[in-house]
């Protein structure tokens, strides 16, 4: 870790004059840009408190003609201090995870082929899943319906003739590059997605199958419908999804409706109403999230949120500071 940080600081010092926060730096004139992000989190729930260095990540990317690549490595929960009542435990996870590692080939203006490990292109949240870029510190429960990472191939067809239209096919038929850093340990995934964007509207439909090794039901199917209206001052978004196995409905529904209002570009208020019914964990809940984000500059997010649950013991306060550099 020290070597990675040392290299980044060295590059930063070499390019200090050109550097702008949130844009990364170019290494010489090479097709290589370096950047990264971190997130410091605080959670307070019933009689439980947790402080953590949630994410510390380095990323490198570049492009050459029709090829481009992305490599991202991350420490997750590098340090966490958890207090339940009077008992405090400290954990240090120093394993470096491979978050993303892929190569893209732009065949022409319509077709792009990707190979490697990537964020599964499902829904809205999973495309920009890191704390500094997402609206709230917490993720909606719709994120639990599908594997957040795929190790395999992805074929995209896109058209921008009048409006934006995209079809996406995901395929995994092998082990995950980093199974410890995924919400499901999968060795198969076949997924599809379709996106249509016109003016400020966006709708998206995803569905697929995946095979897991770490759940009671190994063969699972997911569906997710997403819709968003986004203008300068505010954004309204909603997602609703479902998960089934061959034997039963594992999650009959998980969904949310979210409103985001930009008082100014630096001050953002968020209200989200969520509901889910998870049969595998035998848990269902409906809750509201009230959040406020202060961005002194866009790549810096200072966020607080409070969650009001129908399961009262789940009520919680979250606070985080995250930076993309």
């Amino acid at each position, binding site marked *: 870790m020290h070597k990675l940080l040392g290299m980044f600081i060295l590059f930063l010092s070499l390019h200090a004059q050109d550097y702008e926060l949130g844009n990364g730096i170019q290494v010489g004139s090479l097709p290589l840009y370096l950047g990264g992000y971190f997130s410091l989190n605080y959670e307070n729930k019933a009689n439980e408190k947790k402080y953590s260095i949630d994410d510390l990540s380095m990323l490198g990317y570049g492009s050459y003609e*029709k090829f481009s690549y992305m490599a991202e490595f991350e420490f997750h929960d590098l340090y966490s201090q958890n207090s339940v009542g009077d008992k405090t435990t400290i954990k240090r996870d120093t394993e470096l995870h491979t978050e993303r590692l892929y190569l893209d080939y732009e065949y022409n203006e319509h077709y792009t082929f990707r190979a490697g490990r990537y964020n599964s292109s499902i829904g809205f949240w999973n495309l920009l899943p890191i704390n500094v*870029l997402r609206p709230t510190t917490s993720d909606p429960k719709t994120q639990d319906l599908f594997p957040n990472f795929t190790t395999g191939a992805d074929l995209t067809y896109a058209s*921008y003739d009048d409006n934006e239209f995209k079809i996406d096919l995901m395929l995994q038929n092998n082990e995950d590059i980093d199974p410890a850093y995924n919400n499901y340990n999968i060795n198969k995934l076949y997924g599809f997605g379709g996106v249509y964007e016109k003016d400020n509207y966006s709708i998206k439909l995803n569905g697929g199958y995946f095979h897991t090794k770490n759940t009671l039901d190994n063969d699972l199917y997911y569906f997710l419908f997403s819709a968003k209206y986004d203008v300068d001052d505010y954004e309204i978004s909603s997602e609703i999804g479902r998960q089934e196995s061959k034997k039963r409905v594992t999650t009959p529904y998980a969904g949310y409706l979210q409103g985001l209002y930009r008082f100014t*570009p630096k001050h953002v208020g968020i209200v989200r109403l969520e509901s889910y019914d998870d049969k595998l964990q035998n848990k269902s809940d409906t809750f509201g999230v009230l959040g406020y984000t202060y961005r002194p500059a*866009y790549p810096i997010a200072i966020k607080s949120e409070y969650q009001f649950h129908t399961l009262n013991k789940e009520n919680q306060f979250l606070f985080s500071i995250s930076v993309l550099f």
Partner: protein
Amino acid sequence: MKLLLAIFLLSTIASGHEYAVIANKHMTDLSPSQIKAIFLKKLIVINDFQAVPINLDARDPIRTKFEQRILEMSFDRLQAHWTKEHYLGHRPPISLKSQESVKAFIKKVDGSIGYIEMDNMDDSLKILYKWSD
């Protein structure tokens, strides 16, 4: 009164500046939606060439007009967009300081695309889209 109004309207029209999104003659016709996708780095390859969007300097008023008219995004939303794109592995378009530099670049590099005032247009360039104040 009507005459005064007509003179006022004519003078307003006459004083409006015209601008053009341009490329070299090898570039295929593009819709405003495709031009927007190129400048937001969603569309990477066009006409089998690597698409190279070129901006004018950040403080150039023509750039502001282009961003409002074609990209339909405020300065703050564009900054947010490029921060997100950094995470996704995409860089913002390169910037050149003058319209003459933009023209010179476009003449040499297939797939490049920029914007200038119509007054600076010449026959060696192709107009992809035209708008006025």
